[in-house]
């Protein structure tokens, strides 16, 4: 009897000792060893990360993960996706369950400094907005005093709404759900007057309503929501790779390199293009991949403009204009440091 108890105790000790290994710092080596990138995405946000009926993921955040996989493996399909709720996302990344988070996550100072995480850039500049039924005859967010507002728990939206209503001395009732689908269902069933989240999310979720035409988005944008990929702190090699995957896509758009013309561009005389595509220089080696890393990203996934147009642009159901997400050369905010 006592012996069997001892055996169990020793077994448990062994299990704890094995489980005690901290998440390895060298994410890139781990990724190469297992042969795919484990990417944390949303539970379904059209245009950013959304699975189709066959389970194939698409969207801007998904394409960033595919770009990283293309840079490492020359294969945009070498990605496995983990759908995460807003609440689970940081813990999943901290614990090493995913290699990166590409999940329309707002870059804030506390998230950057207190969670042991690093934001590796901004792949979508967003801002929080409000959606309301057209027949409520409300034309401004300042007319919303007393309204019931549906949103997701564990998001910056909850805090922004609190700040906005407090600053304007208005009263409201917040109804916060864990899953985006339940927020939409509750709003659709009339539990709330207003649905609030990032504007891109509003346009995406509006498609899920029974009558999308009966709802409108109010003009006010009440916050800055820079959305971008997140990695664990303390692994600079992986941080660099994720950061420069995004920059490569932005630089490619700026230089006019697309997935269509990238093969011809290999012959280009423009030194910037030659460095981007790895014809000159050893830039790939410095971030732990081959020198034609950016060629692979552009070939398989496309440049930033292509990714935007394909997932959220005017030809998609979301119909979002480039706006502040245009290149800096077009008056937008998307700007990548040069590759040299």
């Amino acid at each position, binding site marked *: 009897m006592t012996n069997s108890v001892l055996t169990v105790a020793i077994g448990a000790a062994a299990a704890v000792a094995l489980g005690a290994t*901290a998440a390895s710092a060298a994410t890139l080596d781990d990724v190469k060893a297992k042969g795919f990138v484990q990417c944390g995405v949303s539970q379904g946000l059209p245009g950013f990360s959304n699975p189709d009926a066959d389970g194939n993921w698409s969207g801007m955040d998904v394409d960033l993960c595919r770009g990283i996989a293309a840079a490492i493996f020359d294969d945009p399909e070498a990605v496995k996706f983990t759908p995460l709720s807003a609440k689970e996302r940081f813990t999943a990344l901290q614990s090493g369950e995913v290699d990166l988070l590409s999940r329309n996550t707002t870059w804030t100072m506390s998230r950057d400094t207190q969670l*042991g995480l690093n934001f590796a850039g901004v792949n979508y500049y967003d801002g929080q907005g409000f959606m309301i039924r057209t027949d409520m005859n409300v034309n401004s967010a300042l007319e919303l005093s007393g309204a019931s507002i549906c949103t997701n728990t564990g998001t910056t939206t909850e805090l922004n709404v609190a700040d906005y209503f*407090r600053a304007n001395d208005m009263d409201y009732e917040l109804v916060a759900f864990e899953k985006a689908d339940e927020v939409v269902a509750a709003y659709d069933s009339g539990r709330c007057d207003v649905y609030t989240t990032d504007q891109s999310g509003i346009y995406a979720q509006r498609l899920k309503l029974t009558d999308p035409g009966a709802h409108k988005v109010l003009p006010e944008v009440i916050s800055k929501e820079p959305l971008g990929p997140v990695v664990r702190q303390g692994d600079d090699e992986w941080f660099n790779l994720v950061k420069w995957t995004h920059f490569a896509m932005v630089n490619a758009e700026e230089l006019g390199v697309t997935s269509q013309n990238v093969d011809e561009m290999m012959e280009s005389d423009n030194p910037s293009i030659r460095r981007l595509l790895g014809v000159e220089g050893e830039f790939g080696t410095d971030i732990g991949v081959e020198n034609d890393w950016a060629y692979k990203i552009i070939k398989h996934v496309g440049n930033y403009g292509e990714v935007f147009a394909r997932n959220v642009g005017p030809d998609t159901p979301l119909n979002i204009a480039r706006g502040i997400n245009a290149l800096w050369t077009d008056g937008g905010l998307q700007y990548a440091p040069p590759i040299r």
Partner: protein
Amino acid sequence: MAVTDTASGRSASGGGDAPPKVALLNNPRVRSWLFQGVLAVIVAYLAYSGWMNMNANLQAAGVASGFGFLDENAGFSVAQSLIAYDQGSSSYGRVYVVGVLNTLVVAFFGIVLATVIGFIVGIARLSNNWIVSRLATGYVEFMRNLPLLLQIFIWYFGVLRLLPQPRDSIDFGALGLLNNRGYFAPKPVWGDGAAITFYALVAGLAIAYVIGRWAHRRQMKTGQPFPSFLVGLAVVVGLPLLAFLATGSPLSWDMPELGAFRPSGGMTVIPEFIALLVALSTYTAAFIAEIVRAGILGVSKGQSEAAHSLGLRQGQNLRLVVIPQALRIIIPPLTSQYLNLTKNSSLAVAIAYPELTSVFAGTALNQTGQAVEIISITMLTYLTFSLLTSAFMNWYNARVALVER
């Protein structure tokens, strides 16, 4: 070795026949203490190394730790709060208290409702009336065989879709308004002298208790029954009512009023609370009904026959003979159901009822990122609720248990 051998020899000499001399390691008492000691050391070491490992990993990952966040400003709003909560200045510690109270309030009302429904259905299952007993059986089988989360969704989204928008509220007149934002009840506003009514209520309860004790003692002594329940009720209701009228009815009502959005004023019961309460209590009631039925069937038929032959009516038989004995069987499993109901209240996350798991282990966790601290606090809280409920039920069980002479 030699010293211990002589020591054991000496102590044994007092007891008469000396036990056979054994090596220390083979002494059963020493052996059991030794192994238990080793086990305790291993368990302590595991706990210690797990703790150190967690700290080292958190430090290595650069994650903030400690409980300082409890004093930080939370800055988000909570839909239902029993205490003053201001989104601008209240701390995460306050969010915790709000969450705990919201859990307790739904658990308390859930337990009361589930017990009432459960007893009615359980007794109805044993009814001689064919329709009543079949209806009760149908209820039990239907409710306990559907997942609870599904039932919560059905109540929440089903009920919500049926209720009208605020501008088309169902108006109960003096009883308030009902719409898909919840039930808006009139709020009592007590005026001057209202405290006297309250004192009268306390006095009424005390008097009713004394009457009850006296009536019981008299019946034990003389066999004369006294309608102590009716008299007690009259005192409890009548005394405060007299005081209320004598002080000039110091009560007015704050009625909810329709506005552009949700009605303003009055007291609000949010639909999330209603849906969760109904789902939890009807679901748990199905299990309680079976426990009650089992308890009643566990009392031998001879008890009822004896009661009837003594001239007790069916109601008296149930109240005085069967149920007191059935309770001894019912209470232990009933405790488990109460614990289940309390823990199941955490499913409220799915429908945005702001209880502990939702606002503290959900929103607060995400805003601070301090998963280890918050999950530990939440687990300890549920553990405390459960242990307190168990302690109370064990005390009650000991009270109704058969006292053997």
